[in-house]
């Protein structure tokens, strides 16, 4: 029965569908993929779940939605400077027992919010029901910082991987397709570029300007496209000698079709299987830059900065354990995805990983 189903399924499937099916056979990779994608999508609407701003405030028969607009504390008759504190507001409204109410996110602490006024004792505070992962030495909620750091880490890694691969594929494709002088010249340029010490350049740039997310992306991209060109170049050399490319030449296909329609789709295997590991590498790179203090400026909730805090306050276990554990779980999930991708592109049916 199961075999019959398998046979029926095998009728007319594109290579991509076949690979997707094989990808799903590695369960841990498939579920890791679903979890990471789900969490990453959620992280874009994270203020709905974790954050200091209330979702909806009803005050004197008016409705406000503070997660979209700024409201000063005085608007709600709160006696504090700056933005309204919605947790206190909620407490205040429930004590008043009037018609006013506040709808807070599930976890109502922001990543950069100083909670010194609302907590007892000196920070850092150990994990409690209120702060499930405790607070750090500046009395900020660790869980909120980790949660916001997830989006930054993954976004950074994805964009660096994407742009680096784009540059790498284009340059590798030019080298492989045209060969000869083009290949030699580009390859010498790449070799010169590859000898630039990445860390020194970053340190110099960070000492001149304050790096932001896009500048860091740009710098990382400039240093991580090189490896991809080797793979793409090699694949292009191999694929362009095959008869289907000759057939396309013989039918008069223009060069851009030869490169993008015929050779490139058949050269993507090493690149795609490499991508999850490149993402892991880029997450780690951002973490190490932040750890060293050359990354995103404080108070950005980055993972490296959290680990640095743990390093300084090593006697407070929650500052060490939670950031490291979350980072470990994320990286291992992506490595599982990488394994499943590798399996999907493996022409052999029986694999050791299953």
């Amino acid at each position, binding site marked *: 029965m199961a075999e019959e189903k398998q046979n029926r399924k*095998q*009728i*007319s*499937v*594109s*290579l991509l569908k076949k690979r997707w099916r094989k990808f799903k056979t590695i369960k841990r990779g498939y579920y890791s993929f679903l979890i990471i994608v789900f969490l990453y999508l959620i992280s874009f609407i994270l203020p709905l779940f974790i954050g200091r701003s209330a979702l909806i405030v009803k005050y004197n028969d008016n409705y406000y939605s503070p997660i979209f607009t700024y409201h000063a504390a005085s608007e709600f008759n709160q006696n504090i400077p700056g933005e309204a504190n919605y947790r206190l507001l909620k407490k205040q409204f429930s004590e008043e027992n009037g018609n006013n109410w506040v709808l807070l996110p599930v976890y109502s602490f922001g990543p950069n919010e100083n909670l010194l006024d609302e907590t007892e004792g000196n920070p850092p505070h150990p994990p409690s029901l209120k702060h499930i992962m405790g607070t750090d030495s500046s009395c900020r909620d660790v869980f909120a910082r980790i949660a916001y750091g997830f989006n930054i880490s993954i976004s950074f890694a994805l964009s660096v991987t994407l742009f680096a691969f784009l540059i790498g594929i284009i340059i590798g494709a030019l080298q492989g397709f045209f*060969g*000869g002088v083009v290949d030699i010249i580009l390859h010498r340029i790449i070799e010169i570029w590859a000898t630039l010490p990445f860390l020194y350049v970053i340190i110099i740039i960070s000492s001149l300007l304050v790096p932001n997310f896009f500048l860091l992306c740009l710098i990382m991209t400039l240093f991580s496209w090189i490896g991809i060109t080797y793979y793409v170049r090699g694949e292009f050399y191999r694929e362009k*000698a*095959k*008869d*289907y490319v*000759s*057939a*396309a*030449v*013989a*039918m*008069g*296909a*223009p060069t851009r079709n030869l490169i993008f329609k*015929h050779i490139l*789709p*058949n050269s993507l295997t090493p690149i795609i299987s490499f991508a999850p590991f490149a993402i892991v590498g880029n997450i780690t790179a951002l973490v190490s830059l932040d750890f060293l203090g050359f990354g995103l400026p404080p108070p950005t909730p980055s993972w490296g900065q959290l680990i640095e805090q743990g390093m300084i306050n090593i006697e407070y276990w929650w500052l060490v354990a939670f950031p490291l554990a979350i980072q470990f779980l994320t990286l291992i999930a992506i490595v599982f995805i990488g394994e499943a991708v590798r399996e999907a592109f493996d022409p052999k049916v029986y694999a050791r990983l299953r």
Partner: protein
Amino acid sequence: MNQDNILEIRNLSVNFPVTGGFFKRKIADLNAVDGINLEIKKGETLGLVGESGCGKSTIGKAIIKLLKFNSPDVKVSGEILIKTEDGEIDIIKLKNKDLRKYRGYIQIVFQDPYSSLNPRMSVGQIIEEPMKYHSKISKKERGERIAYLLEKVGMQPEQAKRYPHEFSGGQRQRVGIARALATNPKLIIADEPVSALDVSIQAQVINLLQELQSEFDLSLLFIAHDLSVVEHISSKISVMYLGNIVESGLSKEVYHKPVHPYSKALLSAVPLPRVSLEKNERIILKGDIPTPLNKPSGCGFRTRCPIAQKECAESIPPLELKRENHFAACFFSK
């Protein structure tokens, strides 16, 4: 150019420069094709035979202008004339856009059906692609033509949605033939189209080629090393040795009454499916084919020829008429 001819090759030479040393000096010339002349008439099949490395595939690639793509350093000289609606055109002189325009007149069927189809494209897309470049017909008409061509090569139109890896070698070769037919070519170069297939499939594919040839009024350049296959499909046969044509004539003439000693040896090696007491006379050639980097003087075949004499080393024998419609390049053979 003769009226009936669809293709005429005049004095075609192909040289692959061999470079070496630190500065990539040219140290030798690999002379793959050495000034050959060929002509193919409309609706005719020319079989080109010879052992490996004699330059027969190089001729095919030169005609379809794949040599420059596969090895940019190659030197091609001579003339390859094809007849088109715009008159005679020398393919060697064509470049880029002009060349692309006339690509549709000649198409090629490759030897290896596994690497000649793009694994990322469905059969329908593979057959559709040349139509996009060479005919201005709508998407719907293209779909109809794909179905028509698939039926012509003995497949079902529903199979257009499938991918190459779902087919056997024979079926893939049929798809390759359908792709070649898609531009309405005048000439198809079949570069050993059956040598990668099972014997039972070989016959099917060859019969298919023959049917299509009469139906579409195609000319065929059939490159192979299997003489019995070539004899079956060709109206004329040219035998190549070391970049030269050594014998050329009507298929039956060359197959049954070869003149050149090399053709004789080649034919005596054809296995016959006959059990008989009389033994066929086997001519066994000694030694290897000389390297085209350093050809022997005079006749290229003299180092292995059983009837070679002094004159053979001194001058190159011309391709001369030995019988009616039968040419051979040998001083002594009759």
